[in-house]
């Protein structure tokens, strides 16, 4: 670190005065009614109503998700109509009546719509929820009795990435129905035991009320606003940067470029400059950043920075990356720091990691085969689209302490990576994570924090906040990598796989981030949940000049299962056998080993039962019997088809992954659970509350899971990724609860003069076995017991629990053999679709999904994960893709042209089934199921498409144009 200037930039008094005089002259005085109260304000004409509501009126329930009226997070009611407040100028609202989500709360009580959203599990991360509340309110005011279609139409202008919309539609329909019979009332919730029930989401109320505070909403005293300037080129050498104009602008407090720091950040590979230095490696890479008094000034200053570049030919594809004498994306790869023994970059090439899996003898396996099939598949990069974009506040404190408040999934990983980059001791870094508006893997690592910290340092330690625009979220923040795959399978005539050879080439973009671990995880999972005796698999993570890849719900599994599960159907079709039977013939069963040599046991779960369940649900057997007749049959331009697909996934994490939980008793016998895994919508905190309540024998209402992780206060947790938190955090919670009870028992044993093992804790009360008449409430013990004479013993009860992954090993560098997985979750989807063969549009009529979750902790939330995951998977299946121009520029980084599913795009029927084969190490036998619902959704739709039309598609997404052109250019159509 070479601080160029320690002090903020100075401006002349004259400049500043004339600036403010001019600004004052442009202002308009407006008066409006906001939630029933009159407000008069002076605003510049370009200020939006959204900025007025959030910035001037300090009503933070209304959110900004895109700024262009596509996502609906900013929906408010203006003179009775729902509108996008980001598209209305504040001056236009002069004289108008505005209602925001805050108006729904009357006398401290949430409204019927808000209550129903909680009851139906219709809020997860909660960031979009206030917008939905307002759209729903406006709908019910204009149409008290809407049909489901009318509800979907009214809500389609509001994006939700978590819930899959169905629970929201159900909630609004329930409120409308109840209006005819005296108003909406919540159903009764079951009492203890809570595990297996459907305890309401612990954070539901704050989220529906709009009072949950996200980093997005935070403003600190003296806070500066930062913006970044990003590279317009995919590959270039920076020749010159001129920041003088920006530095001279009134209100600019710090300007950061690559000249100011040579530090690198990275998770498994430290390969990324905090701000591009000398070289830019993707279009969208930050090359400068400005902190200023306002966001407008910071933006204008960024525009005033001149950058001269020598543009280079970008590496766009994996083929270009792997070509002989290819340009190197990282010329100094060999000098970087990386996690040794786990990742194997190849200096002098564009290979960031090469994961090999070698099992058995593939040559022999192919000799034993009756038939050999070879196919190639493609996945485009796609985005997480969390509704809250990345945002961080940094404070560089005097004395070198650092405080970071960030929308991140993993506070301790942010702290650790920050410490590694800057060489600052962990104890001097404090990372706080409040409510997070969705993550899906995109907020797993470290992103904006180092840049924002440097700005704060340059601005004399003032807090600096940077929030990505939606465009930056797309082209600057990492995404899901692209994948090109080649799969060669040897099979016997009846469908038994004898050999499998796979090459996965990941277009991981400019930096390794999580991409190298995606390439690793997707390798050890890369043959699917099948017993393959002879397997050769190579997974190469390639650097290219594109926005880089990171963790994304499914962590490479959606992509490889597109290959594996389409491959199974293609082979079955080639052999003329039932793809269900073929899968069951090869599926892992107790006694088999996985491709890394892991023994498959009863406790692993039942992929076969998942598949059979969904096959039965969609009537697969009868359908398949008629398939030779119906395949490719088109009636009135429509073709129908069904499909099935299997899936599996295990947490991808280091062998030593661990977490800790602290449970603190309060005076009234309620408890606070402190964890550092983040609940960014997936519902883990509710599961932990249920587990703790059952273990502590107290009502779940008395359990509070603290929503704000703070590395100064909450105990260590590795990362909130990989669907591991309920399993690991659940185990640690059980241990912490038992620690609490042990402390209560120890004191009670003295009080009752009985051995601790004779003490019973039940229903918030303590007694000695057989002496129930003497029982005392927990509250007598949890702060220490006081005898009648005043003597006291014990003390505050604080329980500690921890869990570290058991039995995992690193994978052998040459063969990939080892035990990588804490627990596998298996699942399957079955689907029926209708294809409009004239347009190529696919409509998913029904999807049935089954997962072996070991034990359902919370049924409503399990369903919520499945519905939300399936709909997100349908986005990958049917629409989502990044489009690049020939120069490697990302051309659809907005919601205008990157389309995600809306309330009108969900299947009419979505069914969820849970198989419960207990996992030996899981809390109550539970496994994770957060990512899995998304995996194999594209595969099952692709299989159904082939069955409907006879046309095989190998590339995602299956958007109308792709399907239409595939049909057009195949000769495989039958008209009836």
């Amino acid at each position, binding site marked *: 670190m070479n601080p160029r200037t320690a002090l903020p930039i100075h401006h002349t008094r004259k400049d500043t005065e004339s600036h403010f005089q001019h600004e004052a002259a442009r202002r308009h005085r407006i008066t409006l009614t906001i939630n029933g109260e009159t407000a008069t304000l002076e605003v510049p004409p370009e200020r939006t109503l959204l900025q007025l509501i959030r910035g001037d009126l300090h009503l933070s329930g209304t959110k900004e998700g895109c700024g262009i009226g*596509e996502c609906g997070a900013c929906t408010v009611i203006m003179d009775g109509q729902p*509108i996008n407040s980001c598209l209305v100028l504040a001056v236009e609202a002069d004289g108008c009546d505005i209602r925001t989500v805050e108006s729904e709360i009357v006398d401290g009580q949430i409204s019927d719509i808000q209550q129903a959203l909680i009851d139906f599990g219709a809020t997860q991360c909660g960031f979009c929820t206030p917008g939905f509340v307002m759209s729903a309110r406006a709908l019910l005011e204009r149409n008290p009795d809407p049909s489901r279609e009318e509800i979907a139409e009214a809500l*389609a202008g509001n994006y939700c990435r978590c819930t899959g919309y169905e629970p929201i539609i159900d909630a609004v329909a329930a409120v409308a129905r109840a209006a005819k019979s005296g108003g909406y009332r919540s159903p009764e919730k079951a009492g203890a035991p809570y595990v297996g029930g459907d305890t309401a989401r612990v954070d539901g109320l704050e989220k529906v009320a709009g009072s949950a505070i996200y980093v997005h909403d935070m403003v600190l005293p003296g806070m500066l606003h930062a913006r970044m300037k990003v590279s317009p080129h995919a590959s270039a050498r920076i020749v010159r940067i001129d920041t003088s104009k920006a530095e001279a602008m009134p209100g600019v407090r710090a300007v950061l470029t690559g000249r100011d720091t040579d530090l690198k950040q990275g998770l498994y590979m430290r390969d990324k400059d905090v701000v591009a230095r000398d070289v830019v490696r993707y279009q969208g890479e930050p090359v400068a950043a400005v902190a200023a008094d306002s966001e407008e000034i910071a933006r204008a200053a960024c525009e005033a920075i001149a950058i001269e570049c020598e543009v280079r030919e970008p590496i766009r594809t994996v083929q270009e990356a792997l070509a002989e004498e290819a340009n190197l994306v990282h010329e100094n790869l060999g000098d970087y720091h990386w996690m040794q023994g786990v990742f194997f970059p190849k200096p002098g090439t564009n290979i960031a990691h090469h994961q090999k899996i070698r099992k058995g003898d593939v040559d022999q396996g192919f000799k034993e085969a009756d038939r050999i099939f070879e196919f190639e598949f493609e996945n485009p990069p796609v985005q997480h689209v969390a509704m809250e974009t990345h945002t961080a506040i940094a404070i560089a404190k005097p004395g070198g302490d650092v405080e970071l408040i960030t929308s991140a999934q993993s506070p301790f990983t942010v702290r650790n990576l920050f410490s590694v980059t800057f060489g600052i001791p962990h104890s001097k870094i404090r990372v706080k994570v409040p409510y997070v508006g969705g993550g899906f893997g995109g907020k797993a690592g470290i992103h904006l924090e180092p840049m924002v910290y440097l700005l704060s340092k340059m601005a004399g330690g003032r807090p600096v906040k940077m929030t990505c625009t939606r465009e930056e979220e797309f082209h600057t923040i990492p995404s899901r990598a692209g994948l090109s795959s080649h799969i060669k399978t040897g099979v016997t005539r009846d469908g038994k796989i004898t050999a499998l050879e796979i090459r996965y080439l990941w277009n991981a973009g400019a930096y390794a981030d999580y991409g190298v671990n995606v390439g690793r995880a997707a390798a050890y999972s890369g043959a699917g949940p099948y017993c393959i005796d002879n397997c050769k698999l190579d997974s190469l993570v390639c650097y290219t000049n594109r926005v880089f890849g990171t963790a994304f719900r499914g962590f490479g599994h959606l992509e490889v299962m597109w290959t594996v599960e389409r491959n199974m159907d293609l082979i079955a079709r080639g052999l003329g056998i039932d793809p269900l039977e073929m899968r069951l013939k090869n599926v892992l069963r107790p006694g088999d080993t996985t491709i890394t040599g892991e023994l498959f046991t009863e406790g692993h779960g039942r992929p076969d039962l998942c598949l059979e369940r969904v096959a039965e649900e969609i009537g697969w057997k009868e359908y398949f019997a008629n398939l030779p007749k119906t395949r490719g049959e088109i009636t009135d331009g429509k073709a129908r088809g069904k499909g099935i697909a299997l899936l599996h996934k295990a947490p991808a994490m280091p062998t030593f992954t661990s977490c800790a939980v602290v449970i603190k008793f309060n005076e009234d016998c309620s408890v606070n659970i402190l964890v550092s895994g983040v609940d960014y919508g997936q519902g883990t905190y509710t599961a932990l509350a249920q587990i703790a309540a059952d273990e502590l024998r107290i009502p779940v209402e008395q359990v509070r899971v603290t929503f704000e992780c703070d590395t100064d206060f909450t105990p260590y947790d590795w990362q909130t990724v990989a669907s591991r938190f309920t399993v690991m955090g659940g185990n640690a919670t059980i241990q912490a609860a038992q620690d609490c009870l042990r402390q209560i028992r120890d004191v009670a044993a003295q009080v009752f003069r009985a051995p601790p093992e004779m003490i019973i804790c039940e229903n918030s009360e303590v007694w000695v076995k057989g002496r129930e008449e003497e029982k005392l409430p927990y509250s007598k013990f949890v702060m220490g017991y006081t005898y009648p004479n005043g003597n006291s013993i014990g003390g505050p009860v604080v329980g500690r629990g921890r869990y570290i992954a058991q039995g995992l090993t690193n994978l052998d560098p040459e063969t990939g053999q080892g035990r990588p997985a804490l627990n596998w979750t298996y699942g399957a989807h079955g689907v029926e679709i209708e294809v409009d063969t004239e347009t190529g549009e696919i409509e998913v009529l029904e999807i049935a999904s089954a997962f072996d979750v070991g034990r359902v902790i919370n049924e409503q939330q399990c369903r919520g994960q499945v519905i939300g995951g399936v709909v997100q998977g349908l986005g990958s299946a049917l*629409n989502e893709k990044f489009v690049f121009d020939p120069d490697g520029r990302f051309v659809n980084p907005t919601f205008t*042209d990157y389309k995600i599913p809306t309330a009108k795009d969900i299947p009419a029927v979505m069914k969820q089934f849970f198989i419960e084969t207990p996992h030996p190490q899981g809390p109550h036998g539970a496994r994770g199921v957060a990512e899995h619902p998304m995996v194999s959704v594209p595969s099952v739709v692709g299989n159904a498409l082939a069955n409907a039309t006879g046309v095989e598609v190998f590339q995602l997404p299956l958007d109308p144009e792709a399907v239409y052109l595939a049909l057009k250019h195949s000769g495989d159509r039958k008209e009836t």
Partner: protein
Amino acid sequence: MAISRYSRPTSVAQACALLSDAPGRTALLTGGTDMAVSLRSGRDVDLMVDLKRIPELHTLGWSDEGELTIGACMTLREICESTPIRERFPALTEAAEVVGSYQIRCRATITGNLCNASPCADTIPPLLALGARIRITDPSGEREEPLDGFITHVKKTRLKPSEVVTAVIVPPPPPGSRNAFMRIQRLRGHDLALVNAAATFNPKTRAFTLAVGSVAPTPLLIPDLDDACPSGATPDEVGERLAERTLPHISPIDDVRASAEYRRDMTALLCRRLARRLMGNP
């Protein structure tokens, strides 16, 4: 700064006076749903004239002959909710219903959709097919012009800086005639059209009009359809003839939303589907 001056006249005359006096870049504001996006992208405006407080621009008028006059500030929601429009000009209703989301339609106006002059604007093909005119007011008075020809290129119209489009006029449809709008999009939620098209059909005279959008720099009214529908021709035959006459006029491009090939084929498909819809049993 994005907007130097904002003004909110209460009459068309005031608006015209403001515009004719104003130097620099002026902009008219109705619904603002496109304007706000362009301001966010860095558009600078010296004078923004907000027309929404002019009462006469918020009217929907029907002449005795059935001619419809839509005031410039009528929102797409208001157009969607008008039963007489739905009965007589379903093509216009159907187009208005797919513009953006419900929230967008609560703000967006029909003249905004016209004057923004996007090649994929959904309300333009029906208005072209229905033979709509626009009323333009400037300091010297008011005149009417056919909509066809008003839009000159992508995002360009013939409107001069001192002029205001105050209304859209849709002539009465011939008795017994039908009209419809259809489009192709990427998903069912709010999206921009990959191709859109509207047509009218008079069963008595067998006359067709047809306009298509998103396949050329401007929405196109297809000429020379007089013999597209000879008596006795089936809807599919007519659809093919409409497509044959339409395709030579379009010049679709490959872009982020779709390929030229898909757009061309979907244009032909919409011709066939419109013929089927309009010639089928009502």
